[in-house]
């Protein structure tokens, strides 16, 4: 199929903009958004460019997003990079697993719905999240007690590590407190445009971006193989 030079140019512009800003909103970038949404040829060009960059380009609602594929460590975070971003220097693997678990808890609390949207909560308070972390770690420690020794990752150890963090009423941001640990994770998620975190009011809300990603990408039955890989059911199959 022959493309016009204009179409190629604008598709390249769109892709570079995505590379720089990770998303294109209709409100602020109306020109690029419309070029993408209204012209299927441009859409195809951008998508193919995304494929070359090992990512997918999706339009959810009035925003176009750049989404890295599982094996993309250039745009996406590798495990080591994620650890560096979430846990401060000197963090152990245990800290990293704990941080992953905390993010999973946040998502599960927010997106437990089975209705038209998976979103089940409009907001969470920081204190509540802290309590759920404790509760789930404890539950995990009990349910997986038998097998934890051989696997190397144990909820019991994570629970101990978490409970060993001080609890600080004054809302200290030091890494040695529960508040500080959570604060750091929340700040990271906020920087990624997934949450809105109002420190003053201890309020956590999700953004439209996270809502769309959960509804249409992460929890999409078509992407269920991701879960199977995480759970180690289909390691070789893919």
């Amino acid at each position, binding site marked *: 199929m022959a493309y016009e030079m204009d179409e190629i140019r604008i598709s390249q512009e769109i892709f570079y903009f995505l590379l720089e800003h990770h998303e294109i909103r209709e409100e602020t970038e109306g020109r690029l958004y419309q070029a993408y949404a209204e012209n299927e040829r441009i859409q195809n060009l951008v998508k193919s460019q995304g494929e070359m960059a090992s990512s997918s380009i999706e339009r959810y609602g009035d925003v176009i997003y750049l989404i890295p594929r599982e094996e993309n460590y250039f*745009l996406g975070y590798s495990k080591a990079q994620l650890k560096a971003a979430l846990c401060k220097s000197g963090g152990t693997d245990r800290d990293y697993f704990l941080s992953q678990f905390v*993010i999973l808890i946040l998502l599960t609390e927010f997106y437990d719905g089975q209705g038209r949207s998976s979103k089940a*909560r409009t907001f969470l308070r920081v204190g*509540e999240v802290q309590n759920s972390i404790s509760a789930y770690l404890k539950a995990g420690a009990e349910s997986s007690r038998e097998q934890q020794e051989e696997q190397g*990752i144990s909820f019991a150890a994570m629970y101990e590590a978490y409970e060993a963090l001080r609890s600080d009423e004054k809302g200290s941001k030091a890494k040695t407190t529960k508040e500080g640990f959570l604060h750091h994770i929340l700040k990271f998620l906020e920087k990624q445009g997934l949450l809105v975190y109002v420190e003053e009011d201890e309020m956590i809300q999700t953004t439209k971006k996270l809502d769309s990603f959960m509804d*249409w990408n*992460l929890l999409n039955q078509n992407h269920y193989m*991701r879960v199977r*890989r995480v759970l180690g059911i289909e390691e070789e199959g893919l």
Partner: protein
Amino acid sequence: MQYEFLKQFPKRMKNIGLYALLFGNSSQKTTWKQYGFDRMDEQLNVVFAVMLYLMEQSLKKENCLLDDIGAYLDTLNTSSFEKPMSYEDCRRLGDFIVNVVLSNDGRPMYFDGYDFEKREYLHLHISYISNEIVYLDTGVKRTSYRLTEDGYNLLLGTLEVENNMKLTIQEMIFKLHLEKQSYDKAVDAVKNIFQQLQIQLQKIQEAMGKVRRNALNYSVAEYQQILEENMDIVRETRKKFIEYREMVKARAAELEEKHINIQKLDEQEKENLNNLRVIEDYLTRAVDEHQKILNHHLDLKALYTKELEGLSQMSLIQRFSLRTELFDQVLEHPQALDRMELFFRPLFLQAPHKIYNLNKALEPQQTARKKTEADSREQIDVDEQAWLQEQERLRQEKLEKYRGCLGYLLGRLLTAEKFTLAQCRDDAQAQPQIRKKLIPNVEIFKEVMVELIRGGEFDIPALKKERRDFIQENAEGFQINEMLLQLLEEQESLPGAQGRQLCRLRVCRTPDGTAVAFDGVFSADGEEKTIRCSNVLFQAQYE
């Protein structure tokens, strides 16, 4: 259907649900007891008082933070409830009312109403307030609360009449007021009408927000209702408002005419005239608001169509349950956490690595100021007040050192009129206290010398004039001109000061181009160093 009167039963149940859920949310909570609200009546009085405050703020389109609610409750408490609550308690009570009683901790609330036509229960969604993130003038991010449509319905139902009657009754009252010429009441009436319009406008905006978030959450029935309401309001009231405006204008003109002709109006008439102007103003704004409703109405229509089109492709997506399929599994097999980042990968994006452009090396260079990271301040675990005080103390201490160094040079100049840095060095080597004064540390000495040499010539009267004529902010750090003048004034005010006034201070390198070295001086962080500086000649000139 057998019984006609059971039609629209869910609609009634929705209204019942508005009360029922609120009572349910409030009654089983023990938090009330902490603040001394033991009886249910007391509790509900407070809840509705808070809701009315929220309505007031929502109508004014002003922010409503927890702090505001706390302050409001505090005022109410001191004037009326008289419970033993501090301001902090009031704030916590406000937090409880807004986030627990009215928002159910962020969990959506449903009330099941039986639909006798479909013979099933309908889940009626109920929400009293919504919150949004706002940025205050200071750039601080806060949560602001406002009333939703359900909230308005509930509150208006407690005093105002049923929804579709409201406007016409208000209009009737307004007309009566106008005819009876009791203008102050007419002002209230027209304000009310204006508020109705604003509520409708907010309704549309809320609906647009909902559609934008997820068009599937917005039902066709809701859409139809809001469209009909819009059309009714716009159709019925616009013409009337314009008529009112004309009428009010005519009356105001009449009164004004009188004002010119008779030159004298009694107090009552003056007030009437003022009220009429207010009414006219409101009516003009109401017509504007109409225009906005009409525009929003069209926007909503376009938006809904577009979103639905987009969603028709998306709606086929099947979702799995995060809790059962992943979370519960992870609880049993924690080793999955090791690969968890796979699942999160689409969520996090990092910036690509930077590429260095060699041409940058050839550009004129500027000192890159160290940018303090916005986040780093928050990690310091100290009392902010104490920290600021400590910073101020350190700053003063440092300034004192500058003052010592410059003061020594100036003092010497006042006695000797002319000397070189080499002479200073010789004295400093002989007397440690001079050396300590002249060179508190390397950095400070260097800065003072650099500033002096760069300045070259200091015209004292001109500097004084400049200081007099310009209002300057108190500079944070070391300012040579400022300090020079301060020191001079101090010297002059000393009892033994000579009567002559220094008018010019000249600092220049000596023509022979030799250098002066100071050995064994310490830098700010305690390192021993040698300073080498070109020899400098200091000269004073008096009037």
